[in-house]
């Protein structure tokens, strides 16, 4: 039975090591816990010795870029030109942005041109082409321009600013624009010169203009 003292010694050694480990763990967790939870109470005058406490509050804030049309700055309005096939037309719609950084602007055309609801007939055209030009100007004079046929302003059009503005889509203005800087959307068309004559009637199209931040 000489094994009994050896087992007792082993148990004592293990218990000692466990206490050391526990103490080390407790010390480590204590260091990771909330620092200095010291509490100071300030009292009203005459109610206690401490009447004020200085508290340092580190306030950090940042201003994220915002981008949109300024109030009343979205291009809006209409043009109605009689006998536009003979006279052509041109009209500018002012744009005022409120973008604190770079921005993108894009345009979509509902019909891809001036379209009539009249019945199509062989040898006649029911859609009249026209041009859309964008000129965006930043606060520092930086400008971005582009022009496309309305036929390329569909959702999958080939124009550089066709579709809906996004962080990677649209005509990019590299500077902030926070006031009216002379930006505009221009629609124009010369006298119609297509080989197929236009059917008589009313023609219409709607341009939708969107703006987005461009990081």
């Amino acid at each position, binding site marked *: 039975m000489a094994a009994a003292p050896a087992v007792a010694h082993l148990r004592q050694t293990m218990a000692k090591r466990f206490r050391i480990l526990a103490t080390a763990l407790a010390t480590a967790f204590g260091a990771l816990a909330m*620092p*200095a*939870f*010291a*509490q*100071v*109470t*300030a009292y*009203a005058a005459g*109610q*206690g010795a401490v009447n004020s*406490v200085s*508290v*340092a*509050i580190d*306030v*950090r*804030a*940042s*201003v*994220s*870029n915002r*981008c*949109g*049309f300024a109030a009343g700055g*979205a*291009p*809006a*309005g*209409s*043009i*109605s*030109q*009689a*006998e*536009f096939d003979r006279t052509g*037309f041109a009209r500018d*719609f002012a744009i005022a942005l409120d973008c604190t950084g770079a921005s993108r602007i894009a345009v979509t055309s509902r019909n891809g041109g*001036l379209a*009539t609801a009249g019945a199509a007939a*062989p040898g*006649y055209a029911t859609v*009249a082409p026209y041009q859309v030009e964008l000129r965006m100007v930043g606060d520092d004079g930086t400008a971005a321009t582009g022009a496309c046929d309305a036929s390329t302003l569909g959702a999958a059009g080939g124009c550089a600013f066709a579709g809906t*503005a996004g962080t990677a889509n649209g005509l990019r203005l590299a500077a902030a624009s926070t006031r009216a800087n002379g930006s505009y*959307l221009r629609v124009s068309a010369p006298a119609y010169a297509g080989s197929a004559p*236009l*059917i*008589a*009637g*009313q*023609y*219409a199209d*709607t*341009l*939708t*203009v*969107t*703006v*987005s*931040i461009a990081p």
Partner: protein
Amino acid sequence: MPTLRFAPDTCPARPAVSTTLGIVAVPMLLSGAVYAAPLAAQAIGRVEIGGHVAPRCWSLAPTRTDAATLANPDSRSSIAARCNHVATPISVHVRMLPPIATEREAQPVANEIPPSRAAIEIVLSPTL
């Protein structure tokens, strides 16, 4: 988090402040609120474009015809024409009306070249 606590026997309008040192929650809260703001705001503008094409006809192959030919009742000039409001081809017949058909004879003015005037009748007919 800072906590508000009223010291005993004091007016509630003048609360005492009890807080912990080393406040970290406030800046974290502020920073979080800022970074949570949307990065992209978007707006929409709309422009309506309209126009009108008036109905009209035009000759497809204009030809020059002299007055003597037009004045001959048996020799009418027939021109093919096209209109933008009807799909049916149009033919155009042109003839010169005799002077009696005009309202009033031209009156020569003294010391001037005698004036000339003519009336032309243009008839558009659909080609069936």
